[in-house]
């Protein structure tokens, strides 16, 4: 009791103090409504994001969005979870794409974007959003759950100077995995120590590979249709690709550069000739690479029917949170606060803001309109290859059940499991088949655990 009173008193003191400071110089007629916004982007991206926020604040006087950097994506996520449990959740939290399944199942903790827009009467033209972007954050029947923002996809970067040295055409990057293997052999013969590497092994070599070939990562449309999904990593294509990677590594054609983004530095430093990485790596390559390079779409196996299709996205989206577990129907916020969140979302959805973000950062434009805007401004002529990621996301028409994205609870853990099992295969501790089956078994245990916890929450 006493604790609660103290907390309330402290909160009240803060509430009085903060606007007081802001108000003094501005002398606005009424204090703007404050919207707390937690994000997980380090510099320089975080600064660019906070610039968008301050532009929004300057564009009107009724709302003030307060951005706050909370560490890496997992740290931001656990911070938001802890804040919710103590009834002090931020209005908006940025959550990476692999946290989507967990957030979607979070019930009372979140306010779905479609509900927010309906209750505040603000409209956003989601039909204009790129299907793989909006689809990743929608329910199976097309309701928007979170606000898409910084989205990337995986692409292939290649070193044109090294291609030339190996007698390969620098303007004809390999299209299929068969071509990639042939190119890697030539590069190795030309004395290049690292013909190819990959960042984000689980995202790019597993999730993207399966989506591009229209193969399931899990049943129930990769989890979009229900929490009872089961992993399907032991499928023929996945085992074949894993087998190839292990074989290529043994022959010195492929180098494993570590988990997540650990291999990012191997391409711009001029060490590896071909690198699979996030399209967001582009900015760093532009800054650091001292050689001619090119961008191409992710390769595919030409003998797989229906390939290639669209790739899936990475990056993050914005989730709207209720204040705490006991906040009731209002979510613990005033109508003005909800309205402010919706207005902020409308602002960041504008093609001008989105196009600028895309050009400044290397993330893909999330709307067709911003893509068009950027193209008309001549950006892609001046920066060849910057549009590869978008074209790849739109490849092969409408997304299928296998290429819409991933909607699995506990997926942060599953991604780690996949990377661990891949590492064991690269260490020659187990075969590709064993690695993928072990990953299936361990990941299924995570899924069942998540299903059990959330089935109880739904009761």
């Amino acid at each position, binding site marked *: 009791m006493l604790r609660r009173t103290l907390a309330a008193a402290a909160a009240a003191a803060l509430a009085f103090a903060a606007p007081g400071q802001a108000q003094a110089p501005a002398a606005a007629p009424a204090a703007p409504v404050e919207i707390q916004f937690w994000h997980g982007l380090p510099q320089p991206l975080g600064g660019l994001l906070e610039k968008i926020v301050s532009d929004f604040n300057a564009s009107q006087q009724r709302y003030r969005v307060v951005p706050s950097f909370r560490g890496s994506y*997992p*740290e931001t*996520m*656990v911070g938001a*979870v802890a804040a*919710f*449990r103590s009834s002090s959740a931020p209005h908006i939290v940025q959550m990476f794409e692999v946290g989507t399944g*967990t957030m979607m*199942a*979070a*019930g*009372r*903790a979140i306010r779905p974007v479609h509900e927010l827009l309906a209750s505040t009467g603000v409209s956003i033209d989601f039909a204009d959003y790129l299907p793989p972007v909006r689809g990743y954050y929608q329910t199976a029947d097309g309701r928007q759950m979170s606000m898409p923002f910084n989205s990337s996809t995986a692409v292939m970067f290649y070193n044109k100077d090294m291609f030339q040295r190996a007698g390969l055409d620098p303007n004809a990057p390999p299209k299929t995995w068969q071509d990639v293997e042939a190119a890697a052999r030539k590069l190795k013969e030309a004395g290049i120590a*690292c013909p190819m590497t990959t960042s984000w092994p689980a995202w790019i070599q597993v999730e993207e590979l399966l989506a591009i070939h229209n193969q399931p990562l899990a049943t129930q449309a990769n989890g979009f249709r229900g929490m009872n999904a089961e992993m399907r990593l032991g499928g023929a294509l996945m085992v074949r690709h894993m087998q190839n990677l292990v074989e290529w590594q043994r022959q010195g054609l492929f180098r*494993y*550069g*570590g*988990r997540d983004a*650990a291999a990012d*530095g*191997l391409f711009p*430093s001029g*060490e590896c000739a071909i690198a699979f990485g996030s399209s967001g790596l582009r900015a760093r390559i532009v800054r650091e690479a001292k050689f001619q390079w090119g961008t191409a779409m992710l390769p595919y196996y030409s003998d797989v029917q229906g390939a290639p299709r669209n790739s899936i996205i990475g990056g993050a989206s914005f989730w709207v949170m209720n204040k705490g*577990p006991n906040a009731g129907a209002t979510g613990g916020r005033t109508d003005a606060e909800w309205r402010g969140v919706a207005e902020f979302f409308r602002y960041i959805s504008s093609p001008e803001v989105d196009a600028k973000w895309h050009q400044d950062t290397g993330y893909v434009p999330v709307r067709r309109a911003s893509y068009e805007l950027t193209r008309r401004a001549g950006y892609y002529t001046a920066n060849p290859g910057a549009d590869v990621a978008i074209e790849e996301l739109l490849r092969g028409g409408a997304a299928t059940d296998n290429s819409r994205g991933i909607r699995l609870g*506990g997926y*942060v*853990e599953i991604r*780690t499991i996949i*990377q*661990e*099992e891949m*590492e*064991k295969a*690269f*260490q020659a*501790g187990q075969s590709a088949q064993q690695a993928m089956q072990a990953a299936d078994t361990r990941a299924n245990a*995570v899924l069942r*655990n998540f299903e059990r*916890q*959330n089935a*109880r*929450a739904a*009761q």
Partner: protein
Amino acid sequence: MDRKVIFKGRALPMLLLLPQLAVTLVFFIWPAAMAVWQSLLQQDAFGLSTEFVGLDNFAEVVADPAWRGAAANTAVFASSVAVLALGVALFLAVQADKAIRGQRFYRTMLIWPYAVAPAISAVLWLFLFHPSIGLIGRALNAAGVMWDYQLNGNQAMLLVIIASAWKQVSYNFIFFLAGLQGIPKSVLEAAAIDGARPLRRFWTVVFPLLSPTTFFLLVVNLVYAFFDTFGVIHALTRGGPGKATETLIYKVYVDGVDNLNLGSSAAQSVLLMLFVIALTMVQFRFVERRVHY
């Protein structure tokens, strides 16, 4: 007992104890109690549904091969770190205790690494041993040694052990040096007159006289290896490759923060807590009495 008369009433001593008790209660006892409570629950991440499951979490943790693997890793890791850090520190302390030119300079230099934060020291080691950007890592590969700690579990373990032990050497060094200086010169001189060579003097006189220091440091080093090496592992290997360098404390972090599995994470930290309590009890009950003062 006779000290009791210093305070006449009970109120003043209580009042004087209060700040210390409050700090202990708020920052140590309360969180520990919360961890114990959480370890008995199954909960979704957001705390929307809670089920009391008794000791189920503990049963699951102990039966989990991944936890057993982490326990085995921790045993190898902690004992190696303690032995390496103590051995190197003792050697350095004995050398620095000799009457040599620049004695003060050496001593000061040897103490410095203690001021480096674990994560920073890990990054320094990364720059030395990374297979493609590290100075030594590249040299090893150029010399034909297949050095890649990102894929070789044993090399990864070796690296985190060296990096963690290096950090602790300074701390041990200070205590050993103080211990050495506390050994009466007369004892050593007597041994020398009896004809004991330096090595023999060290093992039969110096080392036994240092045993209280050594034992105290052993406990401190084990606790360090168990709990304070998180930053080193996080920055260098993140528990990989596979699960080769995942220690118990790292697993607590991964399950709690990354995987949001609070019940299991809490159960694991309670087990760790029990281990430290046991370790401390061993120290106070048995060894403090037995060691040679």
